C-alpha cells in the first residue's frame, strides 16, 4: 500500500492531517541576516553571513536538504574562468554574454560570477563535493588536466566549464550551513516583506510567512534580507498531471521572491522578456531519452539503419571528427557553453551541434526514424563520462536515470538508446527529450528579467539583497546561483554589521496575518489548482508572444478580477493547500509585473522575443534600452536605463574597477 486511495479503500476512513494545526499562531524569529529561499543560492548566502560571525536564518519553502532547482544535483559548473587551466578571462566571458544578448543581460552580475565562480566551487569541494577525478578514472582523457585532475565540458581547449560530481551538492551545502549554526525554517511560504515603520519606508527589516504543515504564522525580523528564491514556472503553464515529472522546475516555482520585492517597492528590469517554454515539461522525463545536448553533448546520434548524423560548427561548417565536437572552430574565440541563462549566442561563442537541417533531411528520407544515441562509437572515457559521470550527477539523473536504467538492464557499451519519435521539426534542436514541438506554442516562460541590483547585488531598497539564478537580472543557472548567493550573503552581512536594530510595523504584521488565512475561513470556494490554471490561461491569452496595449490592459483587468473574485473566495482544506493558494497570489503578482513592463516597452524587440502588434517595427534604435519598473505608493513607476548602465555613473567605467571597489 502506497497511495492515499489504497489507504482509504483498506481502512474505510480518511487519514487525519498528520501535523498539529494552529492557524495564525504567531512565532517571532530575530536574526542579523534573513535569507528567503533555501536552495543552493540561499544556503550559500546564509553560510557567507554565518562565516562572518552573524546570526543567519533561512526561510525555505520545501526542506533545505534537497530542495530547489539545484537540489537534485549538477554535472557541470559554468563560468569558472579563474581556474588554473582556463584560457578565458572574466572580461572575455562577460563580453561574450553581453554581445550575445546585445546588452540585454545584467553583465555586472555576470562579471561578479566569473570573478568568484571558481572560488565558490573550491569551497564546495571543501564541503565534500567531488570536483576532480581523484580516482583517476579518466586518466589520459582529452577533457582532463593531469596536474589538477579537473575535467572540462564543451570546450576542451579553453577549459572554463568544469565537470563535477554534484549529485549530492545540495546535501553537502546543507550540512555546512547546519554545521555553522544557520537557523533553517522549512515548509515556509513567505507572504510579505516587512518594511521599517513610517510611510513610504524604504528599509526592509524581515518577512512574514506561513508554515505549510502546521498553518502557524512566522514573523522574521532581520537587519538585512537576501532574496534567493527561484523562478515562476507556474505562470504560463499549469498542467502538473502532464508536466510535473518532465519539468526542470518543481511545483514550488511560484515567483514568491519577486512578488515579495514588487509589493515592497523593489525595482525590476526586463520583466517583459518571455520565450517559448521548451523546458516546460511537455516532452519526456529529463535526460531519459537519446539526445546530443548539454549533459549529452557530443553523443553520436545514428538513424534506424546505423547511419550517423553529422555535426556542424558554429558557422555551419562540417565538424570532421569526434574531437572537433569539443573544440572551438576556426574563427571562434571560445565556446560559452549551454545552460547559462542566455537565450542567444553569437556564432563566435556558439557550440558545435548536430546539423541544423536534420528535419529536412529526415523528411527527404536521408535519415530514418527512430534515431538512437550510439555510445559504443565513443572511446571508453567519453562514454563513461557522458553516461556514468554526467548522467548520474546532473540534476534528476542519479536515481531517475542512472539508477533506474541500469537496474532495468541498460548498458551503454552494448545498447542503442532511442530518441523520441517526433515529427521531423522535433529534431531541429539536439535536446530531443524536451522536443519543443510538444509544448503548446502559447506557453511562454520568463527569460532573464528580474531584480535590478547594483554592484553589491543590493536592490533599490535598503537592507534587501538578491542572490539567485531565476529572478536576478544577469543570473544564470546552478553554479551561478551558488556564486551570487554567496556574494549577496556577504554584502548583506556587511550591511547588517553596522545596521540599526530593525523595528517592526505591527499594523503591517497584522494585515499580512489577516490576509494569509482568508482561504481557511471559507468553506466552499475553488481550489488552488483551478485558480492557477486560470492565471496561466490569462497569461497565455493576453500576454503571449504578440501583445498590444488594449489586450495587455484587458489581461491586467482579468488578473485583478480573479484576485478579487475566485481567488478571494478560494478554499484551502489544510496548510498544504493554503500554501499553494498563497502561491497563486504570488503568481498573479508576477503576471501583473510582466504585463506592466510589457506596456512600458512601446516597441518590438527581437532579443527579448517581444512583439507589440501596435508597435510592430522591430528593434527601433531609440528603444535599445532597459526598462526598470517599481511600485511607489500603489503607482507604477518606470524609468529607462542604458544597456551598459553598470559601467556608467554612479559606477566606474570598467568591470574590474567596479568589482574591486565593491567585492
Amino acid at each position, binding site marked *: *500500500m*502506497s*497511495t*492515499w*486511495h489504497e*489507504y482509504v*479503500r483498506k481502512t*474505510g476512513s480518511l*487519514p*487525519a492531517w498528520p501535523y498539529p494545526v494552529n492557524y495564525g499562531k504567531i512565532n517571532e524569529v530575530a536574526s542579523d541576516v534573513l535569507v528567503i529561499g533555501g536552495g543552493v543560492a540561499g544556503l550559500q548566502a546564509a553560510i557567507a553571513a554565518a562565516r562572518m560571525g552573524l546570526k543567519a536564518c533561512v526561510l525555505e519553502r*520545501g*526542506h533545505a*536538504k*534537497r530542495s*530547489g532547482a539545484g*537540489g*537534485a544535483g549538477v554535472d557541470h559548473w559554468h563560468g569558472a574562468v579563474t581556474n588554473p587551466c582556463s584560457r578565458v578571462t572574466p572580461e572575455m566571458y562577460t563580453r561574450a554574454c553581453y554581445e550575445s544578448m546585445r546588452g540585454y543581460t545584467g553583465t555586472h552580475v555576470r562579471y561578479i560570477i566569473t570573478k568568484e565562480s571558481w572560488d565558490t566551487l573550491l569551497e564546495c569541494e571543501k564541503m565534500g563535493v567531488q570536483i576532480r577525478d581523484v*580516482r583517476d578514472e579518466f586518466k589520459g582523457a582529452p577533457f582532463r588536466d593531469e596536474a589538477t585532475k579537473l575535467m572540462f565540458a564543451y570546450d576542451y581547449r579553453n577549459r572554463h566549464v568544469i565537470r563535477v560530481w554534484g*549529485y*549530492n551538492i545540495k546535501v553537502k551545502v546543507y550540512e555546512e550551513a547546519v554545521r555553522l549554526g544557520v537557523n533553517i525554517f522549512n*515548509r515556509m511560504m513567505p507572504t510579505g516583506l516587512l518594511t521599517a515603520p513610517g510611510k513610504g519606508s524604504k528599509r526592509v527589516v524581515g518577512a512574514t510567512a506561513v508554515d505549510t*504543515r502546521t498553518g502557524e504564522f512566522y514573523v522574521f525580523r532581520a537587519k538585512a534580507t537576501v532574496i534567493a528564491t527561484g523562478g515562476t514556472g507556474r505562470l504560463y503553464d499549469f498542467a*502538473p*498531471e502532464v508536466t*510535473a*515529472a518532465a*519539468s526542470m522546475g*518543481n*511545483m514550488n516555482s511560484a515567483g514568491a521572491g519577486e512578488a515579495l520585492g514588487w509589493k515592497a517597492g523593489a525595482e525590476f528590469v526586463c520583466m517583459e522578456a518571455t520565450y517559448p517554454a521548451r523546458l516546460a515539461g511537455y516532452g*519526456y*522525463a529529463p535526460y*531519459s*531519452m537519446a539526445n546530443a545536448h548539454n549533459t549529452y553533448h557530443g553523443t553520436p546520434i545514428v538513424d534506424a539503419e546505423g547511419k550517423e548524423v553529422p555535426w556542424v560548427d558554429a558557422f555551419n561548417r562540417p565538424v570532421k571528427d569526434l574531437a572537433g565536437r569539443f573544440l572551438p572552430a576556426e574563427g571562434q574565440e571560445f565556446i560559452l557553453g549551454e545552460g547559462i541563462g542566455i537565450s542567444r549566442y553569437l556564432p563566435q561563442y556558439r557550440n558545435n551541434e548536430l546539423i541544423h537541417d536534420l528535419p529536412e533531411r529526415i523528411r527527404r528520407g536521408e535519415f530514418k526514424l527512430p534515431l*538512437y544515441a550510439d555510445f*559504443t562509437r565513443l572511446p571508453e572515457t567519453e562514454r*563513461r*563520462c557522458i553516461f*556514468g*559521470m554526467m548522467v*548520474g550527477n546532473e*540534476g*534528476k539523473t*542519479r*536515481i*531517475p536515470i*542512472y*539508477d*533506474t536504467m*541500469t537496474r*532495468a*538492464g*541498460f*548498458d551503454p557499451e*552494448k*545498447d*542503442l*538508446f*532511442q530518441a*523520441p519519435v517526433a515529427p521531423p521539426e522535433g529534431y531541429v534542436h539536439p535536446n530531443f527529450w524536451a522536443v519543443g514541438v510538444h509544448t503548446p506554442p502559447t506557453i511562454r516562460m520568463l527569460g532573464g528579467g528580474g531584480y535590478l541590483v547594483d554592484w553589491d547585488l543590493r536592490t533599490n531598497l535598503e537592507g534587501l539583497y538578491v542572490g539567485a539564478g531565476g529572478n536576478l537580472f544577469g543570473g544564470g543557472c546552478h553554479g551561478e546561483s551558488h556564486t551570487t548567493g554567496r556574494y549577496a550573503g556577504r554584502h548583506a552581512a556587511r550591511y547588517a554589521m553596522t545596521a540599526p536594530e530593525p523595528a517592526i510595523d505591527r499594523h503591517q504584521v497584522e494585515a499580512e496575518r489577516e490576509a494569509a488565512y482568508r482561504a481557511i475561513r471559507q468553506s466552499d470556494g475553488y481550489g488552488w489548482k483551478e485558480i492557477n490554471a486560470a492565471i496561466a490561461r490569462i497569461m497565455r491569452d493576453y500576454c503571449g508572444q504578440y501583445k498590444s496595449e488594449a489586450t495587455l490592459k484587458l489581461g491586467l483587468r482579468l488578473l485583478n478580477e480573479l484576485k478579487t473574485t475566485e481567488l478571494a473566495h478560494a478554499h484551502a482544506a489544510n496548510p*498544504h493547500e493554503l500554501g499553494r493558494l498563497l502561491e497563486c497570489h504570488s503568481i498573479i503578482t508576477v503576471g501583473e509585473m510582466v504585463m506592466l513592463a510589457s506596456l512600458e516597452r512601446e516597441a518590438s524587440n527581437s532579443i527579448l522575443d517581444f512583439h507589440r502588434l501596435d508597435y510592430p517595427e522591430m528593434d527601433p534604435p531609440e528603444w535599445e534600452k532597459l526598462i526598470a519598473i517599481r511600485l511607489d505608493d500603489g503607482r507604477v513607476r518606470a524609468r529607462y536605463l542604458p544597456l551598459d548602465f553598470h559601467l556608467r555613473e554612479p559606477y566606474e567605467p570598467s568591470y574590474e574597477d567596479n568589482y574591486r571597489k565593491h567585492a
Partner: protein
Amino acid sequence: MSEKVFMVPNPPTPNRAVAFNPEICTGCNRCVEVCPTDVLMPNPEKKQPPLVLYPEECWYCGGCVEECPRSGAITMLHPVSQRISVNWKRKDTGELFRLGMQNPPPPNTRPPSG
C-alpha cells in the same frame, strides 16, 4: 469480490510517483521529511510506509530514494506515459527493451562514476 465499495475521487495523474516495499520500509519517515514538495505524508499507523498523497506534485528528483537508509524500500516510478518512452535496442542482436517491461534483462551493476 465482496470488498466494500466507496465513493472516492478519480485516482490522480500520475498515480504513484513512488512505491514503498512494506517488507523493507520501517516507516522512519526520512523521505517524508525531505521531500521538497510534500508529496508524502506519514502513515497514521506507526512504522508503516508513508502515504503518497500528492503524486501530481512530484518532480521526480529521486531525493526520497537517496535519503532512504534501507535500500529497496522506495522505488521511484516515472509516470507511465514517460516510462513507456524509455526504450533501447541491443546493438548486436536487435533485441528491444523498455523501462518497466515484463521479464527485463539482468541489471547492469556498474555503479555511477565517483
